């Protein structure tokens, strides 16, 4: 009973928030003169042909993986009230480093992928170490440093890919990229598995990194909820003073949380690297780190919540072209994403207050019973 209620309490606010956001968007669309019902239908339209539906499902799943990883990376730092706005820069630097190392190396299959993953995590952590060290030693606010390091990361990645990391085997001309990964580093994906679900296989496989994302999600969830590190992380976030008083080293925790967040951020670019582009070049996706912040907010920093939020964001992203074919601006999906995040923040606050009030009433109710029966007994006696 209590488990059900707890689950309800956890799920109800985001669900309500999504509904409110949809209502606000519908209102906005109506004001703009767009038929809200058509827009809603386009949102859930996966296309006419079986092939189209399978492809859109693939887009939904493949798009959710990096958003989920980015959300988890942000949430780890959020847990102790560290705002790692720098996931964006960390994953870019990590991706360009991993692409370079992966492209230059030749190793057997699982090892090659593993090395790339480790390089990405190390590079992400190293780039996150800069704001962490600045905060610990000089007290510099990590919000400012991570934002600024994002801009530096864009330039750094551009320099690396045009200079030292450039594919030396490619001829003159052409836009700079790293050397493409060998076959042994190309992660297989899920394509024929769609047949098991009674669906047509998509024309391109769903990234195999989805397995890694699930494993990362489980490990991070356990790490945060079941280990001493996780306890110290949450304690430092909930009440820093109390945490320090009970012997948790504050500075070391900042370092650890930022490094872990950066290492996870390093994974964000890998689905694209290992199963889409196979190199870091002009078309490498940017902005995932920023979206990750919204995803972490929407998922309320819990791993299952982030998974749902990532799927929702990816679902809305995927709907852009469907909206456009209906003559509705594709930016409607971005508007929905924005309003969802805003309403979640507001609804969370309202829900927290409601819960606090109910808890208050419950606690008061528990202290009163002693007095109430006595009073009732007295009344009964008086009447008799």
């Amino acid at each position: 009973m209590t488990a059900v209620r707890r689950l309800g309490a956890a799920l109800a606010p985001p669900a309500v928030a999504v509904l409110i956001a949809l209502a606000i968007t519908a209102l906005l669309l109506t004001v703009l003169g767009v038929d809200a019902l058509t827009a809603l239908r386009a949102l859930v339209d996966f296309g006419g042909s079986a092939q189209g539906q399978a492809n859109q499902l693939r887009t939904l799943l493949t798009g959710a993986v990096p958003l989920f990883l980015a959300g988890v990376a942000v949430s780890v730092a959020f847990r102790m009230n560290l705002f790692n706005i720098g996931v964006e820069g960390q994953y870019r630097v990590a991706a360009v480093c991993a692409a370079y190392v992966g492209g230059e190396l030749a190793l057997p299959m699982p090892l090659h992928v593993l090395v790339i993953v480790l390089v990405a995590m190390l590079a992400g952590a190293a780039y996150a170490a800069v704001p962490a060290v600045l905060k610990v030693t000089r007290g510099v606010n990590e919000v400012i440093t991570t934002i600024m390091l994002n801009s530096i990361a864009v330039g750094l990645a551009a320099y690396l890919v045009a200079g030292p990391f450039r594919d030396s085997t490619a001829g003159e001309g052409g836009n700079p990229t790293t050397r493409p990964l060998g076959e042994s580093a190309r992660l297989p994906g899920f394509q024929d598995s769609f047949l098991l679900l009674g669906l047509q296989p998509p024309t391109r496989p769903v990234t195999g990194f989805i397995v890694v994302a699930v494993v990362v999600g489980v490990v991070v969830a356990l790490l945060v909820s079941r280990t001493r590190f996780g306890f110290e992380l949450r304690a430092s976030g909930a009440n820093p003073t109390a945490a320090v008083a009970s012997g948790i080293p504050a500075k070391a925790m900042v370092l650890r949380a930022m490094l872990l967040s950066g290492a996870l951020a390093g994974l964000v670019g890998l689905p694209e690297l290992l199963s889409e582009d196979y190199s870091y070049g002009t078309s490498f996706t940017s902005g995932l780190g920023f979206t990750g912040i919204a995803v972490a907010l929407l998922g309320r920093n819990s791993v299952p919540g982030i998974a749902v939020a990532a799927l929702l964001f990816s679902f809305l992203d995927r709907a852009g072209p469907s909206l456009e074919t209906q003559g509705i601006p594709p930016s409607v999906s971005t508007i929905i994403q924005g309003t969802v995040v805003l309403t979640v923040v507001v609804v969370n606050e309202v829900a927290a207050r409601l819960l606090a009030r109910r808890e208050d009433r419950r606690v008061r109710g528990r202290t009163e019973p002693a007095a109430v029966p006595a009073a009732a007994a007295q009344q009964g006696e008086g009447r008799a």
Partner: protein
Amino acid sequence: MRRTLPGAALTLAALLVASGCAEDAPPQAGGSTSTEGGGSTCGNEVTIDEVTSVGLAFDSGGRGDLSFNDATVAGLEQAQEEIGFEATELSPNADGSNRGDLLRQLADAGNNPIIGNGFQFSEDMDTVAAEYPDTQFIRIDGGPSDCANVAVLTFAEPQGSFLVGAAAALTSETGVVGYVGANTSELIEGFRAGYTQGAQAVNPDIEVLTATLEPGPEDGYNDPAAARVAAEAQIEQGADVLYHASGSSGVGVFEAAAAADVWGIGVDQDQYNTIGDPALAEHILTSMLKNLDAAVYESLTTIVEEGSVDSQNLTLAEDGVGYSTTGGFIDDLVPQLEEYKQQIVDGEIEVSATPAS
């Protein structure tokens, strides 16, 4: 505590290996990797009997950028009027990560041919072309493709930029001209290279100030504010004619030019006509025309007439690029510019596509 973090990392690593191995078992489905690396060809030679629906995937910025995308739309609509097909237009999302998915969605909906506007479609289009071997794809800009069903339309932008560079140098009174580029991609650097060579052909001592909105080879097409700041800085340093190769960011260059009463030079389309603001148009000296509309129109009519279309590089000789005279600001320079044009067409002047510095 000391044991937990490395312990977790080790577990993660072990699981990664395990998942990597587990995935070895179901081998990759056929055709999905043959596109990259080893394979030198993909797709089939496509013959289209009847053009009924055409798909167009935009470059970032989408419809209404008053430049690159709108030029393609103009060509598409002209062909549509004549041939009478259905057209579906899709725009990439903000981070441009869904270009491949746009092409797939257009192919799934039965569009044939499908146009990808911009060199950023290069890899995605080759990948998708392998997945849909019987659909004709047309890409504007970028390197050649290995796929039989991908036709690439390229333009000699450096040649066109040479002519407007010459016009800039002939117009400049200060001996300083400016250039604002979106990024440092091979394509955009070609504009700068041609412009600089054209300006120096007129006046070897001319100073060409250069600003780039994005340090890397991508983006920068949608940031008028940054373009304006860059242009103002160049005007401050004496530049009195400014060329831009930055898509819809260019509006910022024209705003700066109009505010300082100097000249701007448009790109891709005749921006005197498309800018939509008379106050800015009065400061657009000329535009480097990239006749995308004609190229798109012609490739579509070629498909209707011949059933297929091939890659083409459109130069000054084919009027694939050129300059505009709308507004009448460079009417007295036309003879000189035509002379340069003839020299380029005849091969007496070779315009390099890579900047000297």
